[in-house]
């Protein structure tokens, strides 16, 4: 079960907005990357969001570049899960591969507000907005993808299978 406060964004939030290109030369330090999350367009995020929060997007969250820094920065900021109406495919894969829980939930934009607290039952995709009491159903992930996320991402997963 993941519980957290919602940081809500609109439709088509792209990777340049999540992680600006000018910081792409930072490759080795995820903590430093985290400091630039949403920096140029939503400067309040870094100031006010807290580790443990949850990002909620509209449709096509994470569109644009393949840069996985746009996932790394949020993961190391301490964001616990990302839920959206829909994702751009590369962003979705990157989140799985980096072990950051990600769920598609149709209708979520109209059912949560900035600052609401939500409970997410990741395995079943059940989401509850505890602020309003409203319940939602996200699309659960296939078993092998769950396994990658639960192991902490593709690298620990491959390390494990390499050992076997």
């Amino acid at each position, binding site marked *: 079960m993941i519980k957290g406060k919602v940081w809500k964004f609109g439709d*088509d939030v*792209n990777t*340049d*907005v999540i992680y*600006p*290109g*000018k910081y*792409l*030369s*930072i*490759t*080795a330090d995820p903590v430093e990357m985290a400091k630039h999350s949403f920096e*140029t*367009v939503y400067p309040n995020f870094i100031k006010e969001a807290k580790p443990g929060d949850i990002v909620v997007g509209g*449709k*096509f969250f994470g*569109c*644009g*570049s*393949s*840069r*996985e*820094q746009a*996932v790394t920065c949020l993961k190391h900021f301490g964001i616990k899960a990302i839920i959206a109406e*829909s994702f*751009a*495919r*590369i962003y979705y*894969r*990157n989140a799985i*591969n*980096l072990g950051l829980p990600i769920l598609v939930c149709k209708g979520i934009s109209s059912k949560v507000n900035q600052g609401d607290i939500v409970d997410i039952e990741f395995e079943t995709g059940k989401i509850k907005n505890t602020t309003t009491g409203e319940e939602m159903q996200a699309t659960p992930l*296939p078993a*092998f993808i769950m396994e990658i996320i639960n192991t902490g*991402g*593709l*690298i620990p997963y*491959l*390390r494990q299978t*390499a050992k076997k």
Partner: protein
Amino acid sequence: MTLAEKILARAGGKKIVTPGEIVTAKVDVAMSHENADVVLKAFREIGLKKVWAPERIVIIFDHRIPAESERTAATHKRVREFVAEQGITHFYDMKLGICHQVLPEKGHSIPGQLLVGTDSHTTTHGAFGTFAAGIGGTEMAGVWATGEIWLRVPETIKIIVSGKFKKNVSAKDLILYIIWKLGCDGADYKSVEFCGPTMDDMTIASRMVLSNLSMEMGAKVAFCPVDKKTIEYVSSRNKNKVEIIKPDADASYEKILEFDVSELEPQVACPHAVDNVKPVKEVKGIKIHQALLGSCTNGRLEDLASAAKILENKKVAESVRMLVIPASREIYLEAMKAGYLETFIKAGALILNPGCGPCLGGHQGLLAAGEVCISTTNRNFQARMGSAESFVYLASPATVAASAIKGEITEAL
């Protein structure tokens, strides 16, 4: 089966696959650029000593060249050391140009093959009938380790194009128009197949524009027809035998769309979204500060030719900085021989080294708050090319050249 299905069936060792199915596919070519640094770090964490196949990995420096900072210089150095350690055969150390232009030039984009790249515009290689999709760095580390990747078989949208383009209207205008119609997520997770008489007539360079920009409507892969032209190009770059691959006549499509280009007018994608497209005449008169001709979208010889024709014996407006970036060294040399570079220089443009330049906002020509750039590139997201208060308009080489002369957005006549 559609092209995507055929290729994934082969790469996945299956007779037949259907959309929605997940296959574990064998990768033919694995491409990375500067972000190979992210990949190698993840690769080391897996704990393996050797990559799966050093001859199938291509690494190229193009995004931040020459190094704009000490940090990038260190990135380049680490990757060079990794390349030497692993014996990676195809390494292009910043002298050749942009990945999506150089890979075809060097014979890595092959019809029917599976190519993955740590760059979203990897869709470009679909212009050669390659199943070419973008992936992230960690995922690439998995490919370097195993040579395999899981892929969901995409549904396919077929786009039939007919008609002849009017003067100074090109593939760029067509794809911007299609993106406007479909929306920026209109092809999310999908394969796109372009076909029809206009596609058959189209040059390889123009086909690449369509496959490249299909990413901006979310496409996973975007194919152009594989025909005699494709085979001629690919065979001149790669000694191995290449074969024509076509979708089956009874392939099933999620959607079939038709576009007639005969009446199409020059288009421009306005800030800050690629699907915010309007005919150029509707935004005519907007003052510009920078004009950018280049990138993996429109930095090829025919693009430079079309701009040079317009700039011949003309001057770039005093208030405009025009940057010209040939997509590769090969194109650079050809443009020099054809006299285009001289035309640009005389017109007052700056010519930068082949590479990505300011397209991704890393260096070489960023924008200040309040500034406007008209660009032949493929993304105009807020803050992509510098300040969050700058504005990027995307258009064809002809529109960019004409606008550079006038100092404001305008159509090429």
